[in-house]
């Protein structure tokens, strides 16, 4: 705000207008990115929560975890996904949630990549399904490309967590400090 008023006082209305417009457009675009990423996590989490047995098969299919850990991970992963999705919908502590989302996506991509590298024939089970599939029915490149797209969304929010229609912006409107500095865009 301070910088805006300063610019306006100098009479540079045009650049102030452009700055204000581009900022609100970027905030709106950010909201779309945020809600899109939220939908990804909510849908994938909900599908997994509703079919726990299938989720266990999907987690087991990666052949990464000891048998004792497959169950807890299959139970916990969808809950984490739902929590991330919910926080993204609310737009609360967006930068931190975006960081968590990005890290989670990178871990899942690493799991898919190792399955590919080891020559396992599995479905990633990212949105339901999962477990063994016939050799030749794997879709590792597509799964990794799709996840990479989701990572880009997370990176946007990490770089520019300020979005329209978010709890962060509601708090910012009531206070200059907000959630520490986390909710503020750089500058």
């Amino acid at each position, binding site marked *: 705000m301070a910088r805006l*008023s300063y610019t*306006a*006082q100098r009479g540079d209305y045009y650049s102030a207008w452009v700055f204000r417009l581009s900022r609100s457009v970027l905030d709106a675009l950010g909201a779309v990115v945020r809600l899109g990423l939220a939908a990804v996590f909510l849908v994938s*989490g*909900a599908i997994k*929560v*509703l*079919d*726990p*047995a*299938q989720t*266990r*098969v999907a987690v*087991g299919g990666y052949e990464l975890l000891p*048998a004792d850990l497959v169950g807890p991970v299959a*139970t916990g992963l*969808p*809950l984490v996904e*739902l*929590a991330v999705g*919910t*926080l993204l919908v*609310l737009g*609360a502590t967006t930068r931190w949630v975006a960081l968590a989302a990005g890290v989670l996506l990178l871990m899942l991509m690493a799991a898919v990549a190792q399955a590919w590298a080891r020559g396992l024939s599995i479905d990633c089970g990212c949105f339901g399904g999962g*477990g*063994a599939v016939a050799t030749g029915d794997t879709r590792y490149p597509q799964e990794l490309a799709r996840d990479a797209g989701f990572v880009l969304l997370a990176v946007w929010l990490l770089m520019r967590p300020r979005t329209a229609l978010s*709890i962060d912006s*509601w*708090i910012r*409107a*009531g*206070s*200059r*400090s*907000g*959630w520490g500095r986390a909710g503020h865009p750089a500058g």
Partner: protein
Amino acid sequence: MSGVEQAEDKRKQQATEVIAAARDGGGGNRMVIAGVAIIVVLAVVIGIAIFGQHRNKPADLPKAIPAAAAGPAYPVSLQGDAIVTGNPQAPVTVDIYEDFLCPHCARLEQMVHPRLAQAAADGKIKLVYHPVSILDRKSVPEGYSTMAAGAAYCAANAGVFPRFHDSLFAAQPAEEAPAYTVAQLQQLGTTLGAGPDFAKCVQAGAGQRVSTATDNADKYISGLRADHEFGTPSVLLNGAVVLNPFNTQWLDKALAGV
């Protein structure tokens, strides 16, 4: 807009912000409200999710596999990887290839088993069971199909095959859900009257044997079929594939002449 008007606007805006801040008691209140709201929403979402997870759990399996009632008694002998029952010299031979985890096999058993068992007991047919394992990856933990098929061989040796077989299909574990353990299979056999060798036999397992038998069945059945597919249940009547065993006319035909 003149400089004076701008200054006036700015003063008004500042005044509004001060009033708004006073009304909220500053930004701190918004953070508290938001924090509480977030915790409540998260708790509701996670709560519903956990509730959903529990409600969708498959029904728990019984601790002890319920022993099926004794049906008509028929002789059983193990010949290679085939469990031959009924009258080996009968003019009608029925071969059944099944996986103990396969739901369609359980359905077929329910439809045709009473009549087949009776015919076997009456010496009218030679009824041959071929336990195979094609669904090992569908149980939790994996491998129930092989374990159960191996235990079926043990049951044939121990003289308890008919009720062992019937019990496993009557109380079949669901796919992609916890299956029976070695201990539960051992207990079932013992309950049905198997001797101490049975438990040892189940414990030892028959992985290689079952896997070879499954490969042989796959080659044999897919060779007989026009579509070159092998699945369970597969039924042969006098060596010929019954394309749709669920249409029990094949059984009517088989039993008509005997």
